[in-house]
């Protein structure tokens, strides 16, 4: 093994000379990079101009924002701790039940949307487009629609989350089914099992832990979405929060935000533990 040598400056120059193609950037790729960043910049300038953003507005806004933030301290319940706790409970209920209902609907649908279990390609295409359409409408819009159907309150929020997440979970589940190992199903079929049995004993054991992990993750993320659904009257802490912002009770806003942060942290922690337990079991099996 040779000893590491010290590279003298003249050696370095010689290496640079010999292999200059490696060190010089191609003029064409440099021009392309320049054009790319120019287009980027131009589009940004256009966006700022089109949306009519002015610096005086920003400066004025910043000063009033600073005032609001100063008003947030110290956070206070405003004497409505019981109301806030109830609203937080509603929020958790919306997230939990909404995700659970979405799971119940998405689970059978996802088998129709997965290429290896679908009865026909056309069915798969149709189901996928339906799921995409449901998914591209935000949960808040569904909430507005359901407030019109079942009236104000958390039930509308549950239904909104249930519908919008049926789209998202259906897609995720079908992807989990598609990536599952086919050998399990084949061996059940080879043993004389029917198609349904092959799905039950060859496919489900593989996908259930993945699906359970995804459902837990969605409950977690829905606690966040359920906090805002109240803004349109569909229950949960969002209603209180938007009222307090509109009436400039910023100390109460701060308290509600802290409540949300703490609750989300606790839910994250629990679902992290549960997910680890489920995935750990799969690793052992």
């Amino acid at each position, binding site marked *: 093994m040779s000893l590491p040598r010290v590279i003298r400056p003249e050696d370095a120059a010689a290496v640079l000379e010999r292999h200059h193609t490696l060190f010089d950037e191609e003029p064409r790729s440099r021009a392309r990079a320049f054009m790319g960043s120019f287009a980027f910049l131009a589009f*940004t300038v256009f*966006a*700022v101009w*089109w*949306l*009519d*953003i002015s610096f005086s*507005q*920003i400066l*004025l*806004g*910043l000063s*009033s*924002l600073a005032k*609001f933030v100063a008003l947030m301290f110290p956070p206070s319940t405003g004497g409505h701790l019981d109301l806030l706790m109830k609203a937080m*409970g*509603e929020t*958790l*209920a*919306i997230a*939990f*039940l909404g995700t*659970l209902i979405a799971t119940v609907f998405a689970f059978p649908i996802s088998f129709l949307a997965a290429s290896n279990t679908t009865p026909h390609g056309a069915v798969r295409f149709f189901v996928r487009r339906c799921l*995409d*359409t449901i998914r*591209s*409408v*935000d949960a808040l*819009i569904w909430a*507005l*629609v*359901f407030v*019109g*159907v*079942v*009236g104000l*309150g*958390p*039930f509308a*929020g*549950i*239904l909104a989350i249930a519908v919008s997440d049926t789209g998202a979970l259906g897609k995720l589940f079908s992807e989990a089914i598609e990536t599952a190992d086919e050998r399990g199903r084949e061996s059940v079929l080879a043993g004389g099992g029917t198609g349904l049995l092959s799905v039950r004993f060859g496919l489900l054991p593989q996908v259930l832990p993945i699906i359970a992990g995804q459902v837990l993750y969605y409950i977690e993320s829905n606690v*966040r*979405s359920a*906090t*805002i659904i109240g*803004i*349109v009257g569909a*229950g949960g802490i*969002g209603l209180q*929060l*938007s009222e307090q*912002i*509109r009436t*400039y009770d910023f100390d109460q806003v701060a308290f509600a*935000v802290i409540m*949300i*942060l703490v609750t*989300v*942290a606790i839910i994250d922690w629990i679902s992290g533990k549960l997910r680890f337990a489920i995935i750990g079991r799969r690793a052992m099996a």
Partner: protein
Amino acid sequence: MPSSIPVVSQARIEALVVDYHRVVLRRRRQSFVVLAILAALVLLAAQFGEVDLRNLVDNISNFTSYFGRIMPKLSVAHFSADVADWYWNITGWLKLLLDTILIAYLAALIGATGAFMVAPLAAANLAPSVALRFGIKRIFEFCRTVPDLVFALMFVASFGLGPFAGILAIAIHTFGTLGKLFTEALENIDMKPVEGVRSTGSRFVETVRFGALPQVMSTFASYTLLRFEINVRSGSVVGMVGAGGIGQDLFVAIRKFYYTDVSAILLMIIVCVAVIDLVTERIRNHLSGQEIRR
């Protein structure tokens, strides 16, 4: 001819069967406990969520008939006139849709730039200071946990109605989520180039620039595009609280029962989101292809 398969004694088989039954029983018992807990939680949540199935059954016809009512009245005889009638405000809505896309774009740009600059300070393998790292991680958490609509409400109150409040609100949310994703990407890099650059006596910025960034740039770009996609969806709802974009018109149409307007605007949003999904998915596939080649 004796079989090469070893014969299992009857006693052994019986022992195995007993064991098998015991294992199955234990698993059944476990599933039963999990189901019982789940059922209890459902009942509790239904209590809190004021679930009223009779109300749903009574009014579900409202829901289905709603879709009937928002359908445009199109006839073959004067089809183009009907479509023109349905999309009577097409130029106004297209402008608002462009607003929405630009809000999403600027928010993604601001959020990604911020996250890009801060993430190396939060990555466990690069961070120069533990205290700073802890602080930045909490800031990321705060930014992504507080819903963007709450930020939007706050900013509408301070900056006034208009797209700037929406941009800022979505940008903060983007900063929080991308900050987390960027940090995780940085924590998973190969440390050999970083050590190589460090051994030449580089400072923090140079280490990150030449040791870490070349490994993660395409991942960063891919995450940012994904976020842009999500931002278009959020951009279509921040208008509901007056923070710009097409959400304002949609909100008014739903609240004031302008049925055909609802379907017209929703269709525009769905098509727009689908097109952006397709385009960014192609770019993202291209980017991940680049990653593999490296």
